[in-house]
């Protein structure tokens, strides 16, 4: 027996999922379906696209039109889907490595075009699927199997990157802040344009173990402690000291790409 939401939106026969005990990815996927449910989207018109990684396995569990692509290319496939069939709600579920390492170019270009795709990056600060190599979001001097002496790369702030590249909606929340996360995903999907959500996850198996972050419960608590709601931070900045802000970070609706293309089509129709 399952919860109604799970029955409605997930492929029960594909569960339990492959994620490790306590992995934050499951919580994030739950938030995604709550957001979809709240928005009352027609499931037939929802297309979930993912790349390759633990996080990207999400597409297989979700009962929509689902597309599990190649590593890093989710947004490029998604762009083809959206461009050729603009009436679909296209949602990309991806990992930090998938979106921002190998897939970084597709991220900035989809953002630049402001094409109506919602990208949700499950950011666990590591490559989980391949066993714990550092990713572009691994914090400075943290460890990964390919950073045995500490990671000397600066890490991306994915939200800044997406905003800088042109996303018209940007938000962040963590697997701990699951209620807020669902809300942000809801707003992101509602934005007609390119929306980016950093969903901070936790990987107790690799990132946690390599960096002595304790067990899954501990890592959830760390998320609670490390992140502060932007609304609180705005009211009481002292509470945000040394913490990372989450919430709706940017919301600036702009003309959407497929809409603009439609105008060309309409113009040519008139001409003929």
């Amino acid at each position, binding site marked *: 027996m399952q919860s109604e939401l799970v029955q409605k939106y997930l492929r029960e026969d594909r569960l339990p999922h*492959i994620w*490790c*005990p306590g992995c934050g990815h499951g919580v994030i996927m739950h938030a995604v379906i709550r957001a979809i449910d709240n928005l009352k989207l027609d499931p037939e018109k929802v297309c979930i696209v993912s790349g390759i990684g633990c996080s990207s396995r999400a597409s297989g569990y979700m009962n929509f039109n689902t597309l599990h692509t190649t590593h890093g290319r989710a947004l490029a496939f998604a762009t083809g889907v959206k461009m050729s069939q603009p009436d679909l709600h296209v949602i990309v579920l991806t990992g930090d490595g998938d979106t921002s390492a190998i897939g970084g170019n597709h991220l900035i270009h989809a953002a630049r075009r402001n094409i109506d795709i919602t990208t949700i990056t499950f950011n666990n600060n590591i490559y989980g699927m391949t066993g714990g190599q550092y990713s572009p979001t691994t914090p400075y001097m943290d460890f990964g199997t390919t950073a045995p002496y500490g990671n000397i790369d600066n890490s991306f702030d994915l939200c800044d990157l997406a905003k800088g590249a042109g996303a018209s909606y940007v938000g962040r929340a963590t697997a701990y802040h699951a209620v807020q996360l669902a809300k942000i995903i809801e707003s992101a999907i509602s934005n007609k344009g390119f929306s980016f959500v950093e969903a901070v996850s936790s990987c107790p*198996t690799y990132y946690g173990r390599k960096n002595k972050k304790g067990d899954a419960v501990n890592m959830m608590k760390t998320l609670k402690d490390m992140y502060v709601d932007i609304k609180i931070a705005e009211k009481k900045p002292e509470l945000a000291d040394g913490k990372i802000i989450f919430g709706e970070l940017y919301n600036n609706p702009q003309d959407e790409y497929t809409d603009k293309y439609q105008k060309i089509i309409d113009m040519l129709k008139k001409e003929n």
Partner: protein
Amino acid sequence: MSKKYEIRLTGSGGQGLILAGIILADASLMQGINAIQSQSYGPEARGGASKAEVIISTEEINYPKVQQCDLLLCLTQKSYNEYIATLKNDGILVVDDSIEMTEISSATIYRLPILQTANEELKKPMVANIISLGAITKILNLVKEEMVLKAVLNRVPPGTDLINTTAFNKGVSLIK
């Protein structure tokens, strides 16, 4: 006379069976016996049944994968169910005594309290692999116990020598 054992160590993800396999292979080499160790990768590597293989042989080893087990270790019900069919008719089965067994006729069976010894006697669940290794070493009677113990101490984290030595010896003593 040439001897060759195909050994499969099965259980669940976190039980350290791959390490056990490596140690057994290490010890074999120390004694001048050939050995190849391999393991299964894949989603199964994350929880679920886990499998490590070792082939040890006084001759050269060609094919590196276990085909039919001369010795099968099963530490969980799941792994028992999955791999029991791969045991040779006249093979050796080493199972934890928590496992419910189906009828097996011709195999030599050692039903041992491995997990219990680890959990309750030694209070260190993670040494079940070393206990198993002790038992297997004794059963095989090919690689010398001191070699295996030396190999254990080479591979385990610093500061755990004592507990692992105890575990190994416990394992040896489980046999007869």
